[in-house]
């Protein structure tokens, strides 16, 4: 009997302690969450994991302190879409989600668990940054906060790493999203910054709002530090679940192929793509004609929209799409679009997601502005990423690929598994107008009679077009295949199925010298 009573006392103590841990910070901070349309960390996790179930380590971290349940971070393991994942999630009701020494140790340990078990790692960030009072214990040492970023770099390309940003990610903490494969940001609440607006005013004298300096919309459209802008936490979690569905658990595995879904009904490619090489059209409409309905996952939709990057499925097979968008800035490649494509290609290549390039590109932008911005360096970054990707690569010249644009979009020299052209496609160093001007400008100027001048230019255009005729390109084996637009979807599906066993070893070396 005595034993039972002792047992009851122990259990009561455990339950009491657990209740304290599981309820998070002071009720006033829970009220604040509601005001900000935020969810409590444990409710976020219930939404994320299948059936709301997860295991947890270090629940009693810092439980001897009165007001630091779990030391402000939940580290959890469970299933998402049937796939095992590891998660760290800040609790902003506990000292604003700040990091103490146990917080940091817990994050490092869950990363180590993800590494050992080779499963994706998710970071649910809502944190004010370091707990200054604990700096000696949590900041500089071998297992201090720096180790979190060191581990992220180690894990990069080994397992998928995903960041869901629900609140601030301040100072050093802003590097958690920076080292993730993808950052999903909730508009109005998520922010990233090295120095807060208050600090900016004190240190450099700048007066600025948080939204302008480090808000979700700014990062998703201007800085490119954010990838997906969402309206609510629920949407952030459902997008993260959808994104994970495209990925294997780690780099040694292949992404899963699911049942095929028909493409969305709409206009055909023939109707979408204008004959006039210079007229804009919406590449999203063309993508929809090629992929399984509603399968597109847009990455960096608002950043450098002259280039589209996103994940999709073609007859159930996952593909990463890199497509020029002629509707925005003529589909010309800029510094930011090159940067955007380079990261996306690296992401797909790391996790065996085949790449589809849809080229309709007048080339890289020219002029003083972009040269000063280092367009050559950024373009090189894109070309290096594309060139070193060993996953199946299909290059489709939708309408035109001029100049280095052909190179950037996996042109023939970059070993695409196949380079396909639509019958309307043009491939050249430059378009006919520019080429004729470049070669014959002195001669054209010398012709005085306007009629004669026009006739001369038109004749040269005709000659040039014959020179770059797509059948001539195919005859010379420059391109591998010409396909009717209406057949393109099924051709791509067949080709990707065929290339799924591709292996391409690279020459042995440590790593390239990145042109970043």
């Amino acid at each position, binding site marked *: 009997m005595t034993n039972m009573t002792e047992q009851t006392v122990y259990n009561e103590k455990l339950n009491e302690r657990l209740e304290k841990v599981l309820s998070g910070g002071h009720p006033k901070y829970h009220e604040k969450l509601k005001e900000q349309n935020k969810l409590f960390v444990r409710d976020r996790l219930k939404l994320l994991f299948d059936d709301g179930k997860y295991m947890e380590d270090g629940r009693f971290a810092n439980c001897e302190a009165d007001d630091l349940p779990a030391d402000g971070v939940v580290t959890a393991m469970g299933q998402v879409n049937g796939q095992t994942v590891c998660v760290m999630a800040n609790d902003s009701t506990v000292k604003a989600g700040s990091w103490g020494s146990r917080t940091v140790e817990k994050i490092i340990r869950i990363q180590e668990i993800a590494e050992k078990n080779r499963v994706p790692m998710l970071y649910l960030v809502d944190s004010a940054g370091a707990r200054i009072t604990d700096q000696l214990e949590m900041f500089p040492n071998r297992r201090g906060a720096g180790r979190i970023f060191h581990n992220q770099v180690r894990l990069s390309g080994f397992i998928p790493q995903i960041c869901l940003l629900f609140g601030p990610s301040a100072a050093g903490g802003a590097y958690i999203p920076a080292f993730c494969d993808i950052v999903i940001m909730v508009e109005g609440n998520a922010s990233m910054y090295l120095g807060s607006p208050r600090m900016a005013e004190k240190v450099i004298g700048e007066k600025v709002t948080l939204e302008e300096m480090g808000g979700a919309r700014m990062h998703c459209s201007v800085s490119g530090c954010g990838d997906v802008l969402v309206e609510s936490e629920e949407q952030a979690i459902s997008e993260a679940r959808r994104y994970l569905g495209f990925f294997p658990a780690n780099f040694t595995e292949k992404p899963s192929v699911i049942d095929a879904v028909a493409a969305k009904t709409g206009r055909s490619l023939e109707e979408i793509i204008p004959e006039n*090489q*210079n*007229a*804009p059209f919406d590449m999203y409409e063309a993508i929809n004609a090629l992929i399984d309905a509603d399968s597109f996952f847009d990455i960096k939709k608002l950043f450098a929209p002259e280039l589209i990057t996103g994940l999709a499925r073609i007859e159930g097979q996952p593909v990463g799409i890199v497509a020029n968008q*002629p509707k*925005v*800035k*003529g*589909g*010309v490649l*800029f510094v930011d679009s090159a940067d955007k494509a380079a990261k996306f290609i690296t992401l797909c290549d790391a996790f065996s997601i085949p790449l589809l390039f849809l080229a309709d590109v*007048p*080339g890289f*932008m*020219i*002029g003083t*502005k972009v040269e000063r911005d280092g367009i050559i360096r950024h373009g090189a970054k894109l070309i290096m990423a594309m060139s070193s990707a060993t996953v199946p690569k299909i290059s489709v010249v939708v309408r035109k690929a001029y100049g280095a644009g052909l190179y950037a979009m996996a042109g023939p020299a970059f070993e695409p598994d196949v380079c396909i052209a639509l019958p309307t496609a043009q491939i050249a160093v*430059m*378009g006919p*107008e*520019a080429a004729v001007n470049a070669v014959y400008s002195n001669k054209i100027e010398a012709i005085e009679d306007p009629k004669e001048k026009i006739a001369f230019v038109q004749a040269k255009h005709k000659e040039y077009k014959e020179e770059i005729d797509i059948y001539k390109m195919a005859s010379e084996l420059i391109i591998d295949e010409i396909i009717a637009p209406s057949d393109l979807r099924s051709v791509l599906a067949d080709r990707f199925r065929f290339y799924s066993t591709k292996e391409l070893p690279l020459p042995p070396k440590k790593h390239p010298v990145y042109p970043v």
Partner: protein
Amino acid sequence: MTQVKAAMAGTVFTVNVAEGEEVQAGQVIIVLESMKMEIPVETEIGGKVTSVNVQVGDFVNEEDVLAVIGE
């Protein structure tokens, strides 16, 4: 007052509106030509065109103000 700016460097190809004209949000008010491509410039807001700052053939740089739309 909202400024409609050039997204990239190029030459003014067509000017589709005149000062004083009413425009709708999303309407193409100017078309630039750059890199041999037509680059439509849309106004984000509807309203009256307060000023048109460019003519056909002008070179414009990225961020140059092409027109101003009043409420």
